[in-house]
């Protein structure tokens, strides 16, 4: 880490979860004590860990999860427009992951199972309120919707992998992630 950068201005990082399980965010926290030094170097902008609800101009955006509804599309586009470097984090963001398993089924069948025909249901109906975002027919990888600068694989990527990605990026360099840290499980 160059002190030059930190003196000039703290770099801003934003994170979000689209159709993911939050495991990638948890793995980010698995930096444990190293989290403290990272947070000294960077400022967290919009993230589930802060109360900032709208992304401002950021240096790095981390995206967990694929795109399964209209809101995800909005958030993803907002991130792309706000972040200089956008990283797809984890299997779900990269190829849809487990949520994309619903792509093998008709969306209406999934909704029917959950709200009409499943076990122990009363008042069966498919939720359809103006406050609920439109579901997409499929779960899409983020790279199909916006250009992505880096991909960090894993389900989730380890805390070490996050650091190997972030440290060079913060120093203005291209990240090289050790093969030992590249996991796909």
């Amino acid at each position, binding site marked *: 880490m160059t002190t030059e950068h930190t003196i000039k201005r703290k770099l801003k990082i934003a994170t979000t979860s689209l159709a993911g*399980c*939050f495991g*990638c965010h948890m793995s980010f926290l698995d930096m444990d004590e190293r989290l403290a030094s990272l947070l000294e170097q960077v400022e967290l902008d919009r993230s589930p860990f802060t109360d900032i609800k709208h992304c401002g101009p950021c240096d790095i955006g981390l995206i967990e999860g694929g795109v399964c509804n209209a*809101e995800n599309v909005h958030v993803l586009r907002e991130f792309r427009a706000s972040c200089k470097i956008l990283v797809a984090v984890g299997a779900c963001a990269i190829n849809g992951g487990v949520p994309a398993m619903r792509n093998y089924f008709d969306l209406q069948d999934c909704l029917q*199972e959950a709200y009409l025909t499943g076990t122990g249901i009363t008042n069966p109906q498919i939720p*359809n309120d103006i*406050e609920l*975002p439109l579901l997409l027919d499929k779960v899409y990888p983020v790279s199909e919707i916006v250009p992505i600068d880096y991909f960090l694989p894993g389900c989730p990527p380890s805390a070490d992998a996050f650091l190997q990605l972030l440290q060079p990026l913060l120093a203005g360099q291209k990240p090289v992630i050790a093969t030992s840290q590249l996991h796909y499980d």
Partner: protein
Amino acid sequence: MEPDKPASSPATRRIAIDPVTRVEGHGKITLLIDDHNHIVEARFHIVEFRGFEKFIQGRPYWEVPFFVQRLCGICPVSHQLAAGKAVDQIAGVRQLTPAATKLRRLLHFGQMLQSHALHFFHLSSPDFLFGFGSDPRQRNIAGVLAQYPEIAMKGVKLRKYGQQIIEAITGKRIHGTGTVPGGMNKALTLSERDALLADIDDILQWSQEALTLNEQIHTAHPEHRDFGTLRSHYLSMTGSNGELEFYHGGLRANAADGSSIFDQLDYCNYQQIIKEEVRSWSYLKFPYFSALGTGQGWYRVGPLARINNCDRISTPLAEAARLRFRAYGNGGAVHDTLAYHWARMIELLHCAESIHALLHDTGITSTDLMADKSERQPQGIGVIEAPRGTLFHHYQVNEEGLVTQANLIVSTTSNNQAMNESVRVVANQYLDGQEITEALLNHLEVAVRAYDPCLSCATHALGKMPLQVTLQHRDGKIIHQLTKGVDGAVR
């Protein structure tokens, strides 16, 4: 306010907290406000749908404990264990080996410890250390690390320790393996055990400090008593002697006045007592005790329910803490919604004490991990107490062992009605008739956070949600155009 008035009912103003932050996953709160700033409606919506119950169909049953963890990266172990208990039944296993049971319990205590620490220190503590209406730029874990480094670091290390237990047993901190039909796939080695033993005294000490901090926060603030507080029924699992139990026991439901609704109910009969209501404005269903109906039958689960419901705790420090909690409630249930945090820290301490005991148990490193199987069964039901409350997994399989039906009632679903009630209470107490500010809005989130909801997915609305969306490939090509019909169908 009527709970089920459509969100689009005429009101002069709509305010949305979107997304609710510092919770795991995403939801949003909407308020409808009239000309005089009176609250017409306040709702907590879950806008996520993944259709898990459908797409698990056709998968082999033994895959389920690994697969279902991807529902949730915050408490994957809870899903692994609940599903694990269900697949044990499917595999025809009646009794696990003592070593496998101990290992699963240790895993579960590790999970509970990390999740409770995460929730208080990383997500909720800023509200209490800085104040509900403090500067939102500071109100986060980075702010706590800067201002109260000692408290924050102990929280970070408590969570780390729980994660290390999980890693030692399952090979990975998040989404590991471990639970297989009939047992566990790996023993705890002596060196892994010793590494964990080296830190357990610190963990015990810090858990006590975390509890003391929470007791002080709660008792020093009389206004916490009524903050989003509800007199509700409580559901939890207890051991056969009514003791606090996270892994295996019978179901107990108590009414607000402490009287019993049912007790030591075999969880395999859950379908007889719980039904789930669908409402148009949330993807999360609303469970209720079927005998009491939708209006009266809702209940709360999680730490507050467990500490209120149990008769004792098997470990001494946590039991002493429970008695103080009980005294605060004048011998009855404590209904304060913010006491969820206090109850959670009693459990954190119980986890630390139980981990201490299990690590000193010579059987914990035994390699006798697989039970004998008998004939395969057509269904399995697994229930545990996850960090956020009672968690139900129910699977049916065909002759080939492929899943044909799945039903999950996750803990946060059980608290759905309660979270909505608490949001309404706080909206009426603090926001009604007021000029709405960010500080006041955070009060609503504080009420939701007390439940430690695990919503596990994304939302962020820019203005009103469209009823039509065009999905363009990044090169400009239109991938798909979708419209939502009046029936909810997407075309």
